[in-house]
Every structure is written in structure tokens, then in C-alpha cells.
């Protein structure tokens, strides 16, 4: 009897229910609130150095969302964080490749848990450093946790988790830009 089932019906069912394919995270987002916070801070422009990852919890190459791998559109998630902070600093007019001050970082934790049928969450953690020459003027670890509505169906839950990733990174940057010590380190980096 199974042989009588039209192939296209099976194909529709399988592709609809199972979504175990690879995908890319959306590109980094910009926050207007963070742009205004940075513009109003009086901070001096900085350049963005290299961001790296540390440990397996960083999931630097791929995040698993219900069995589907989500890769970074920038090649790695450390690079994603680097691009996100560069984009946000550019929007605020605080990016200068020639600056003697440099912000860099290490991605420590980076994961999405979309197993729940009602709520999904994302967690990210990174160590940020600001240097002027050899001197480290800021060195702190920042974390972010974001939750959103999920669904029993992977076809709904997976895209929601995918679309939530830029917001997770933006929330982490919000924690960094909201730190008076970080903003102060950029001011002290003025030449």
C-alpha cells in the first residue's frame, strides 16, 4: 500500500516536518539605541582588532538548532561578533582604522536552545579588551541571554531561532556599550 503513496506527497511531508539542513545566520544588526548611546558618550573612535573563539562552548563554526546546523555568514561566529561591533561603531561614527586604540575580543559561549515547544533561548558570552599600544585599558567578560516564543513544529521554531540570532549578539553589545567603564576606556584612549 505504501508504494501507492505519491512521491510528491511524501516529499512535501518530509520537507515540511524535517528541516535538518544547513543554514546561515542573518547578518549582524544595528541598534539605533546603541548608536545614540555611543554618539552621546563622548567616546573617541577606535579600530576593531581580531576576535577569536575559545573552547567548544563558543560553537564557532556552527550552532545546532534542533539538528539543523546554522553557520555564520562571516565564516565563523568570532568573526560575526567582530563584524557586529565594527558595524555598530561605524554607525555611531566611532570607527577609525587609524586609531591607536583597539577593541578586540574572545567568544566564550554561543548557543541557542530551541528544544522547548513554548520558549527558546540564546546565550552568548565574550571577553572584550580595549588596548592602546601594549596597555590594556579595559578587560571584561560580558554575557547576554535572550528568550523568544518557540513552537512544537521545527518548520516554525527553527526559522524563529535563526532570526533571533542578530538580536542575541546585539544584546551582548548593548551590555558592553552600557558599561561606563568601557565608554570611559575609549575616552581615556583619546590621543
Amino acid at each position: 500500500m505504501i508504494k501507492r503513496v505519491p512521491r510528491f506527497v511524501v516529499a512535501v511531508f518530509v520537507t515540511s516536518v524535517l528541516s535538518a539542513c544547513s543554514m546561515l545566520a542573518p547578518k549582524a544588526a544595528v541598534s539605533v539605541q546603541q548608536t545614540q548611546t555611543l554618539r552621546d558618550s563622548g567616546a573617541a573612535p577606535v579600530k576593531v582588532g581580531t576576535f577569536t573563539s575559545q573552547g567548544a562552548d563558543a560553537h564557532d563554526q556552527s550552532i545546532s538548532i534542533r539538528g539543523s546546523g546554522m553557520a555564520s555568514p562571516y565564516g565563523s561566529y568570532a568573526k560575526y561578533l567582530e563584524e557586529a561591533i565594527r558595524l555598530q561603531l561605524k554607525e555611531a561614527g566611532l570607527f577609525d582604522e587609524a586609531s591607536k586604540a583597539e577593541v578586540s575580543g574572545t567568544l566564550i559561549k554561543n548557543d541557542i536552545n530551541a528544544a522547548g515547544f513554548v520558549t527558546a533561548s540564546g546565550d552568548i558570552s565574550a571577553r572584550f579588551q580595549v588596548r592602546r599600544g601594549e596597555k590594556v585599558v579595559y578587560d571584561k567578560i560580558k554575557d547576554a541571554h535572550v528568550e523568544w516564543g518557540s513552537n512544537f513544529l521545527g518548520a516554525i521554531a527553527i526559522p524563529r531561532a535563526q532570526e533571533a540570532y542578530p538580536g542575541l549578539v546585539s544584546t551582548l553589545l548593548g551590555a558592553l556599550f552600557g558599561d561606563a567603564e568601557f565608554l570611559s576606556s575609549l575616552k581615556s584612549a583619546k590621543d
Partner: protein
Amino acid sequence: MRISSLLLLLVLLLFGGCAHTIVVAPDFGHLPTAPKDSTRMERPAGYVISEADRKRVVNSGGGGGDSVSYTLYKDIESGFYHVLSNYFAHVYAMNRPDDAAVIKEKNIELIFVPIFTTQSSSSSLLTWPPTEFTLKIEINAVDLHGKTIWQREVTGVGKAEFSEFKSEFGLAAKRAADQALQKLDAALAQFPKN
């Protein structure tokens, strides 16, 4: 009932009328950026997007009988701010056009009031992401007395095929946002300097 009918019914029951979340934000790499030597207008400008609009979820059509949902104003705001900032050195968000506290604190001289509207559809019966997305931006600039001093309307259309959006479900929307904001940027180049 045949197994094929049962499977089809199951698929329809599971997925019929689903609203899938997408993001309608532009790709900043595709937006014009003011050159460093450009002279931006010094007049402080406000723009009005209320908190209610930021939180409002908008639905439009997708494929296979499904729809897509997104926080339209929240998604577009950063690109809109970027484009305004290409022409105005000081741009501030306002919750309403008569927000006297912000007007006074930031010395705002003119206020942009945008209205964003969308349409979307899909030519596919089997996949939900839109294959075509349209974003219209209507924008009025008013003075502090509420008098319109400039207005424009621009529309961006984005298209995406399955082979492209399978890794980025909101791709048609992103392309529409890119195009609409590029047109808005071009329109703002004609904004009166005085």
C-alpha cells in the same frame, strides 16, 4: 481513506495558516553611506516611531497558504536612521511629534514622520518564505508647527527564489528594504538645505 490522503491531511493540519517569523531589516552593506567630506545639515532632526509601532507585529502573505510576521517598524528603524544620518548630523528618535521634552532638550527644528507599509506573496505552494516583497515608505517632514515642509513616497521591491532563500528566509524582504532605503537616500539628497 488512502495513506496519501491521510498524509496530505496531516500536513495541512500541521501547517495550514502558520505565521512564520522573518526580519525585514536591510543589509547595511547595501545602504549608501555619506562620504566623510560631505556637509551634513546641522539642523537637529527628529523622527517619530512610537513604542507601540515598534512592538506591532505585521502579517503579510507567504507561500502554501501560510503568512509571515515581523516587527516592521523595529526592523526598518536602524536603516531609516542610517539614511537620515547621511544628511543630518544630529538625528533623534521621538515617540510622538509633539514630544516637547525631546524637542527642547535636543533643539529639534524639523521632524520626519514615516509610514511603512508592506505586501508580500509567494509563487510557491510548497514553501512559506515570500518570493516577492514590497515595502513602501511614505515620509513627511514637518516643522515645529506641524506644517509639512517636504514629503516623498518610495517603494522597494525584493524578489528571491528558493535556491537563494533556503538559508535566509526573509531575503526578499531584506532586498525590498535595501531598495526602498536606497531610494529614500536619493530622495533626501533633494531635501532643501534651508
